[in-house]
């Protein structure tokens, strides 16, 4: 099934935005993002006392005149980030009205486009079962982005995804070199906390975007229901859905989200939830701005 995830007008608007990294990372050589290291750009960063071996051309003689000590001028460094966008491709993401998968892919594409615009490299990883399938190429330009988007539009959703294992099985998770965006409904028994800890340990900046459908946020059915779990028949359950059970559902959902938010906050991870029926503009320019992921 092919989904339409790109909108030219929306992409034009995205040109005015940029991904915002909260911390400076090491990254890769040749980007536009300021790094913690000092480089050879023209933007002054700091002074440092001269040590033998330093390039004497960088000695600031004006300062020497004032302090009679040798100081050299340091300039900021600009690096390229290796962003990773992880998309939960479990069957549960293919459900909902509108479909959560479409929303997830649009969000992924949007963040991918923003990365490209920021001169960052971006890789899309499709989390399926206990593995992470990576697109065959890294997206470093708009041209490659459009190619990647076409592939994403044909993404197959199905099966059950173990977020922990699939993330831990990523071949090149990177280290202190970029942003990791995980898009999922997080309705999983998998140990997502361990997944976050792993990514934090790799000193990656993590953004978790939970995509839920409106009928998950506000179930609109009641009565004697035999719920057929989309991922596993073992998880089917029968129950009488009433106001009371609906209230319990809302409470359970709220508590689960709070658990996610609290844990993410404790690990410096950005988290927000979107509804699959929310316009992508609202997600990016609304919740993205609020979460300070977009600037």
């Amino acid at each position: 099934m092919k989904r339409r995830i790109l909108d030219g007008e929306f992409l034009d608007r995205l040109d005015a935005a940029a991904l915002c990294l909260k911390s400076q990372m090491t990254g890769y050589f040749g980007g536009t993002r300021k790094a913690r290291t000092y480089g050879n750009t023209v933007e002054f960063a700091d002074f440092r006392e001269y040590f033998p071996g330093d390039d004497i051309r960088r000695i600031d003689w004006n300062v020497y005149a004032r302090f009679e000590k040798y100081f050299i001028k340091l300039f900021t460094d600009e690096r390229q980030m290796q962003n990773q966008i992880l998309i939960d491709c479990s069957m549960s993401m293919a459900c909902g009205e509108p479909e959560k998968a479409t929303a997830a892919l649009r969000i992924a594409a949007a963040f991918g486009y923003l990365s490209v615009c920021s001169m960052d490299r971006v890789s899309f990883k499709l989390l399926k079962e206990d593995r992470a399938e990576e697109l065959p190429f890294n997206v470093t330009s708009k041209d490659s982005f459009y190619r990647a988007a076409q592939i994403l539009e044909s993404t197959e959703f199905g099966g059950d995804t173990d977020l922990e294992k699939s993330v831990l099985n990523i071949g090149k998770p990177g280290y202190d070199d970029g942003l990791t965006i995980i898009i999922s409904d997080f309705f999983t028994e998998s140990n997502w906390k361990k997944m976050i800890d792993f990514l934090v340990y790799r000193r990656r900046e993590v953004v978790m975007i939970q995509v839920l459908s409106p009928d998950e946020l506000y179930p609109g059915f009641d009565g004697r229901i035999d719920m057929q779990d989309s991922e596993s028949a073992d998880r089917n359950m029968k129950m009488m859905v009433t106001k009371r059970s609906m209230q319990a559902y809302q409470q359970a959902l709220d508590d689960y989200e709070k658990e996610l938010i609290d844990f993410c906050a404790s690990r410096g991870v950005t988290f927000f939830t979107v509804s699959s029926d929310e316009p992508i503009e609202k997600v990016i320019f609304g919740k993205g701005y609020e979460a300070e992921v977009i600037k």
Partner: protein
Amino acid sequence: MSFLQPLGLLGLIGVPIIIIIYIIKSRFVQKPVASTFIWKRSLKYVKRKIPLSIILSLLLILQILTVVAASLAIARPTIKPFKSNEEILILDASASMQSSFEGKTRFEAAKEKILEEAEGIGSNNRISVILAGTKAETIIERSEDKINIRYELEDITCTDGDADVEGALELASKIQELNAGATIKLITDKDYENVEGLEVVNIARTGEYNVSILNVTDEQLLTGDYQFTAEVVSYGRGTECAIGIYIDDDDNDETPLVLLGSKNIILPNTNMNEGGTVNVIFTPNRLLEETETQIVVPIDNIQSYKEVKVVIEDDGGIETDNEYYLYSLEKTIPKILFVSSKFKTTGDGAVDVNKPTSLYVALSSNGYVPRSDDMFKSVEAALQAKGELKGYDLYIFEGVEPPEGEDFPTDGAVWLLNPSSIPSAVSGVAMEQETVDGDFTMILASMSQTNTYQTITKNLDCQVGVGRYKPMTHGGNFEKIFSCNGNEACLIAGTSGGVRMVVTSFDFNYSSWPIKITDYILLINNLVTYSIPDVLPSRDFEIGQIVQFNAPAGANKLTFKYEGIILDETEDLDMKFILDKVGVYEVEVTYSDETKVSYMMPTHIPNSESNIVIVGENVVAAEIPADSVVEAEPIEIFPYLIALLILLLVTEWGVYHRDGV
């Protein structure tokens, strides 16, 4: 439970319908969802979640109950009211309750039982006590005062007769009308069957026995000596006791009774002996032998006696049935006025008794010998004595014209034998003057069960020839005894103006009665017996018996005494008297000439009361009057069912919406 609208129960059809709906509706709707992850987590947020199957079962039960309650409400069921703790205690005061055992009578035990009931009934509850003696009487009515109950019980005593249980139940039913929930208990010593609405409390005790004298009779032997037979029994067990006979053989009331004979005897258990009794014979006959059921006690020769008393000395059971009195049956020769056209007179005009008529002979043969010549008068003498024909027990007018008007005797029985006319004082009888001659056969009229017919025809079964009679018609209180020539009345008997009369339409001399001398004497005896009945109806009496005396001619006052104490004096000679104490009653007849004659009435407890161990098939079931058990007004539970229905609906609603079904 009963229903005012039984058709409402058709609503119960809804029960299987609900069950069918539940069976059909029990399937779940399949709903694909992305994940049941949150739903499963939501389960822990439902407090004390009741399993769905239980909720469904609860709902099913509630709905079925709702339908049942609605159906019942439509059917409008009614129930009997619940009983309160009020008790109506009927205390059996029959003679058998006097039975003593281990120093306490059954009556005393029954009173203690009542006190126990009164103590146990609790506060604010009421108790009633009805004494079922020979006459039922309410002693305590709906009292809450236990002290008063005890006080009242101390004063009541046991009677000597039967218990009027039926009357007591009627009284109980009247009290029960005030509180339909009251329970009725009959405290008795008899094994009454339990009846609906009546609880029988039997206070008879194991080991009780009673020795009793049921009857004493006399018999005059060929030697002229008297022999006495006492029928004795021992109920409950066999025992050894002494029995003796005392006699009073003179008219002096001051003379004490003299022991005539006594013996220690062994009595078997009458109940075990299937009701057999033992006859103790006090006899001067030395040849009489003893058998299993016959004990011989030798006594002296007794040619006459006034009073005898048989006594059994035994401490167990009822005391009052251990004595039995018997008084001599000495018939008073009645005063008879006999006027006959057949009498021969002597030279001075008096009746020549040496030339008697056939009727004279028959009367004499029965012992009704004349007391004086005044009894027998010729026609002329009788006519001369008009206005003086009073003071006789029996007036016989044979072949003469009886007196008319005020001269017609009304103080004694009257025989009109072949009268020339029927006096106007005799109502309902008419006789033609013309005689009918022929050869007719006089026979007994058709069988009748009346006392008149049975008395006059006793031992008579004969056919007699009649040559002449006068056609006679009868009505009123007269009854045809003999008839001839088809169905013509020859001898009738009955009453007119309260006077017993016998009327014949033939002359005995024109019949073959005098030839059939035996039957003739018997007929005359029966006629006298009918005309002049015994003053007392029997020789012995039972408690509770109602006695009516046959006042002799000339009597003008009756005095009733009990053991020397005057109970009542009356000039109403038809008065009835109830015997309610064990002992000897005396009725003293005062004649117009102030002479007095006493008749003794020994009274004892009913024989059935002496049997204190009536059990099994011999029990007498208490017959409760149809209206004695009050059918309490049924309570309609419609409002309660409606309330229940509403409660069920609310509960069902609550379960449905609270527990999420």
